[in-house]
């Protein structure tokens, strides 16, 4: 088992994944995956399609029950104290999950209610967050009328409504143009810097990684590297994170080029 920990900052890890395995029938999706994420850090979960990123997210968010290993969010076991764990977790799913028939406000108010926030407090939080993601003018527009990038920004605002200290984003920039991708990445990085939110950002797009980030690399359900970017690049014997990811994922240059958006 490869067990690499990212650098810890506080006493309690924002996320601790310990010896987690998961299978769909006979298909092994995750094998003995262990890593931790410190609070207020930006960690990129790298892996090709099928590496197990979405399965890992489903386990962290209690959508699936953890059968082997354990997952803790700020010290709260997702299986045993799921309420306490999920209070501290905000999620942006890979697939769009806004209700297209409802307005932006109705979508966000619904999510607020799912965290026990209602009335004036919900309204105040919604207005503040929409301002933060620069979408205040779309409050009463139907979700259907938004572009892909705008929907993502609303989903990020939604994930932050209950003020979670840990945010998971699963391939949040897939299908977006370069400008929207950059805007969303900037929004999330700002949340880390100004709000102290810990972020686990799943992607297969290597150009979204910065040198100051932490990375966790999955390949066919196994953790093959984890740590600071510089550390991972050095351990892989490469010069850039792009080359390191290619080596760790078993890709050649052409395949890496093909993968870029």
């Amino acid at each position, binding site marked *: 088992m490869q067990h690499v920990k990212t650098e810890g900052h*506080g*006493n*309690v890890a924002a996320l601790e994944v310990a010896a987690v395995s998961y299978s*769909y*029938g006979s*298909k092994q*999706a*995750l094998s003995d995956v262990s890593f931790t994420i*410190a*609070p*207020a850090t930006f960690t990129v979960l790298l892996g090709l*399609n*099928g*590496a*197990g990123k*979405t*399965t890992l997210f*489903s386990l962290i*968010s*209690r*959508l*699936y*029950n953890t059968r082997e290993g354990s997952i803790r969010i*700020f010290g709260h076991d997702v299986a045993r104290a799921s*309420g*306490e764990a*999920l*209070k*501290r*977790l905000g*999620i942006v*799913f890979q*697939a*769009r*999950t806004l*209700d297209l*028939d*409802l307005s932006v406000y*109705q979508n966000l*108010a*619904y*999510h*607020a*209610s*799912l*965290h*026990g*926030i*209602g*009335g004036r*407090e919900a309204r105040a939080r919604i207005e503040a967050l929409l301002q933060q993601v620069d979408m205040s003018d779309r409050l009463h527009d139907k979700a259907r009328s938004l572009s892909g990038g705008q929907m993502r920004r609303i989903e990020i605002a939604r994930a932050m409504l*209950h*003020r979670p*200290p840990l945010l998971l984003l699963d391939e949040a920039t897939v299908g977006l143009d370069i400008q929207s991708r950059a805007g969303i990445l900037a929004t999330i990085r700002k949340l880390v*810097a*100004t*709000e*102290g939110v*810990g972020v686990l950002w799943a992607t297969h797009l290597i150009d979204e990684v910065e040198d100051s980030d932490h990375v966790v690399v999955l390949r066919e*359900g196994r953790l093959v590297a984890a740590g600071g970017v510089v550390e991972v690049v050095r351990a892989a014997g490469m010069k850039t994170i792009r080359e390191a990811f290619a080596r760790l994922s078993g890709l050649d240059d052409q395949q890496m080029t093909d993968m870029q958006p």
Partner: protein
Amino acid sequence: MSDLPARTSDHGTVPMRSPRLGLRQYLICLKGILVREGLRFVNQRERFISSLVRPLVWLLIFAAGFRQVLGVSIIPPYKTYVLYEVYITPGLCGMILLFSGMQSSLSMVYDREMGNMRTLLVSPFPRWYLLVSKLFAGVAVAIAQVYVFLFVAWFWDIKAPPLGYLFVLPALFLAGLMLCALGMFLSSLIKQLENFSGVMNFVIFPMYFASPALYPLWRVQQSSPILYKICLFNPFTYAVELIRFALYCQIDWFSLAVVVGCTLLFLAGAIIAYDPSRGLMNRKQDTGGNA
């Protein structure tokens, strides 16, 4: 939730303690789910109209045609001879609950790892509470459809005592909850029932026709004792009778007991059997999709 401590960029100050989810938060959650389901229903006018067309076709066409063929003798809760349209109205209320309940619970199973169900299931409230709240919302929408149907039927001169329209509300709620829970339980367990046509053929039609919705059970007993026994084992039979009696301000205690018992049983089964990873697992094995 409001007393979460403010966060700073200092890594040591993330909140380690957050307020409990008390009764107020549970009620806010339930209200949010009910409001959302209501808004969706109002926004989808086609769904609303099509849900009304089916029982109205039965009432206005089928029942009118069979009025002369199927006579209904004086049986409780009726005190006089009643027209066939009057007899089948409670059964058609049950039909609305059956179709609507099955449809909404089926979508909870089919969409369990997608879209709305995903956002619902990652809420910090207990999963059983979220599922029951979602079932409540489905039942509430179905009850609204029933009342619109009864309103239209009233213009067709099918009138229950005024108080009956109030009295029938808890009966509709219980019957709807039982049918929703049954739909979720069955489609969680049986892969073939993950699509609506499977549920139509194997659950809805057999349940509907093997019940007193369209003909009194004494008539069934006369023509087929075996079918009569099947009807007695059909929970929908008791849902229809509960609604029929309640519409005339009476309580059929045996039907009430069966419906309450079945509701609790199916609810427990549905909550235990509901596994969001199961649908994805089935589809992955079918398609070899990505993890």
